[in-house]
């Protein structure tokens, strides 16, 4: 079966992840949880397990106060307007292997959840302490988001922080900004496959997923995989990007590391380094954008006139 709470906590301790643990009666909702730990000053989370039309699963973990609009999220993931729904109870039990009311990012440690996409609220980053259930809902553990990241990375899950309240327009010319978070079905290479025991730290409780679900999971994964391949090839097609903003960002991306290197030689502290770079960037930004736009407009102008002369020369019959 899946990890137990104790196994999870033991794992956290092994990874030297600092957390505090609070016991309380079983709670099924955020409000109930708040009654027991809300006064302690940390940030409560609300966790949803969502499913799309292709049966891919998503754990959305957000600050209790964040408004999550499933329609907007669905569009941002590239699933269309009504692509996301609450997942049925079986998914909780079979895939996440947690009881009802206990959706939590920690459940992703289970093998069965390897194809689940995790979306974390950007807001967690600014909170010192966040509250989650550790696989059972009679306990709440409190830890920082960076420690949560540490935990996720330990079994190969890259934390993905998202501004869940943002609502960028999604259309023909604005690709869905969260499309990369849709599970591709290709398991992360560093994730532990069922047989492999490369992570010596991990207690050897393999997930004995009942055979049926395994087969179903494999089928959905392979379907998703082929779809993933499709979409990725669409993404790879080169497009001429004439965005001045992107150009200026690229320039800074080139200069920043070089500058960092040189500044480090001068014994400048790491914290100062990033604020120096940010300050520089803020000051150079308007001028850089201005000259980039000038160059763009001038290039276009040259091309335009060249095209015009070509047409004149050729005549409209070519």
């Amino acid at each position, binding site marked *: 079966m899946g990890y137990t709470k104790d196994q999870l906590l033991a794992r956290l301790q092994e990874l030297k992840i600092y957390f505090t643990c609070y016991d309380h009666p079983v709670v099924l909702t955020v409000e109930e949880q708040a009654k027991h730990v809300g006064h302690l000053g940390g940030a409560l989370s609300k966790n949803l397990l969502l499913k799309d039309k292709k049966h891919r699963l998503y754990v959305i973990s957000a600050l209790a106060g964040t408004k999550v609009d499933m329609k907007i999220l669905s569009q941002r993931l590239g699933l269309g307007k009504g692509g996301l729904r609450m997942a049925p109870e079986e998914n909780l039990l079979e895939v996440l292997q947690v009881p009802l009311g206990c959706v939590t990012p920690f459940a992703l440690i289970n093998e069965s959840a390897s194809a689940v996409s995790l979306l974390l609220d950007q807001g967690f980053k600014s909170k010192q302490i966040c509250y989650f259930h550790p696989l059972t809902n009679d306990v709440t553990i409190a830890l920082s988001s960076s420690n949560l990241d540490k935990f996720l990375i330990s079994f190969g899950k890259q934390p993905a922080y998202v501004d869940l309240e943002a609502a960028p327009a999604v259309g023909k010319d604005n690709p869905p900004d969260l499309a990369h978070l849709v599970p591709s079905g290709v398991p992360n290479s560093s994730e532990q496959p069922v047989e492999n025991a490369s992570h010596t730290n991990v207690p050897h409780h393999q997930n004995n997923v009942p055979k049926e679900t395994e087969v179903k999971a494999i089928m959905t994964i392979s379907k998703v995989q082929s779809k993933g391949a499709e979409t990725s090839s669409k993404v790879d097609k080169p497009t001429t990007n004439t965005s001045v903003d992107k150009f200026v960002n690229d320039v800074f991306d080139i200069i920043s590391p070089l500058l960092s290197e040189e500044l480090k030689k001068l014994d400048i502290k790491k914290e100062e380094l990033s604020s120096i770079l940010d300050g520089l960037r803020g000051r150079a930004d308007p001028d850089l954008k201005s000259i980039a736009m000038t160059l763009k407009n*001038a290039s276009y102008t040259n091309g335009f006139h060249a095209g015009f002369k070509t047409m004149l020369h050729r005549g409209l019959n070519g």
Partner: protein
Amino acid sequence: MEVGAQREATQPMLVVQEETPPVVGVRAKDTEHETEAAAVELVVTQSEVLAPEGRMDYDKLVDLFGCQRIDAALVHRIARLTSRPPHRFLRRGVFFAHRDFNSVLDLHEAGEKFYLFTGMEPSSEALHLSHLIPFMFTKYLQDAFKVPVVIQLCDDASFLRNNNLTVAECKRLARENAKDIIACGFDIQRTFIFTNISYTRGAFYENILEVAKRVTCEDSIGIIGGSQEDNIGIVGFPPVEAAPSLPSSFPHLFPRNDQPRCLIPCAIYRDPFFRMIRDVAPKIGFQKPSLIESKILPALQGEESSKMSASNPNSAIYVTDSPKQIKTMVNKYAFSGGQSSVELHRKLGANLDVDVPIKYLEFFLEDDDEFEHIKKEYKDGRMLTGEVKQRLIAAISEMVSRHQRARAQVTEEMVDAFMELRPLPNMFG
């Protein structure tokens, strides 16, 4: 659209007094906004903006006109939708009022399109800072929302209004002004600049006729703030300035079956003018254009005098000014809210309500923290007028030299390309 353009005579556009009803072409339904019981007379003219207390009462103006205020929630919504920090004009409340801007945001959120329309009346060779404000903001809107901009140069109005200008000269001024507009950083792939004298024909002219048929002579005179003595050219002008807010005026840009909504960034005193087209557009079968409106940059001498105007050289800083000229202008003419002596100043602090350098910093200093710091120190008397002016000079000089650099790179060919009737395939990308 034009800001601070030269005028031969001061012509009231909207005069509200206790007894007489409003003169401007304001529909009867709008008079509900004009009940003025107070003795305060608010006279808003096209070339002079005055208020008896010596300070523009924007709250009163908004209530009078009946437009809506832009609040913090709206600014936050803009930031969220565009995934970038809001422009300082929004953060500082320089662009502070609107009509139906929320509808534009709703449309944008739903994936619908809109386009921007702004412009000016070429009246002098050099632009001053006031002119730049709507263009700087429109450029920001273009980048933030990724939408096209149409820019109208009213060389015809300039000719009709100014007795000393020939048609050729107006056309030339329009091209020169176009270079300054381009220098503001508009994206040629998303921008169409046109002058009325060249563009008035075809679909654009048809829309002018549609609008003209629905506005009476009397109303038009009210809109331009004129009288029966004015030439019929200028009386007939409002439809020309209104037509670009109808997307079918640009058949090379917007196909017949995909007519986007129009958003017009402009200065607040243009509001009564655009009320006309908002009234007329639905009658022709178009959506009302939305407006987003700004405060007016005061003249250096302070708001008691008049707004920055090309006809009063001491009141304006030009985009052609050298750092030395800027320094002289600010030091000599910028009205200070500081006290008469250093001791008194340290004791009482500065009066931020009338201080012009602070007002200018509000418009032109980018860093919010620095601006707040300066305001506090100056108000508490710890910072002196001289220091505030120094900071302002630095900020304006930086902006002006950036503009001059960009302006120097604008060639005649570039102007031609901006003005060419070419398709803009990626204008919404």
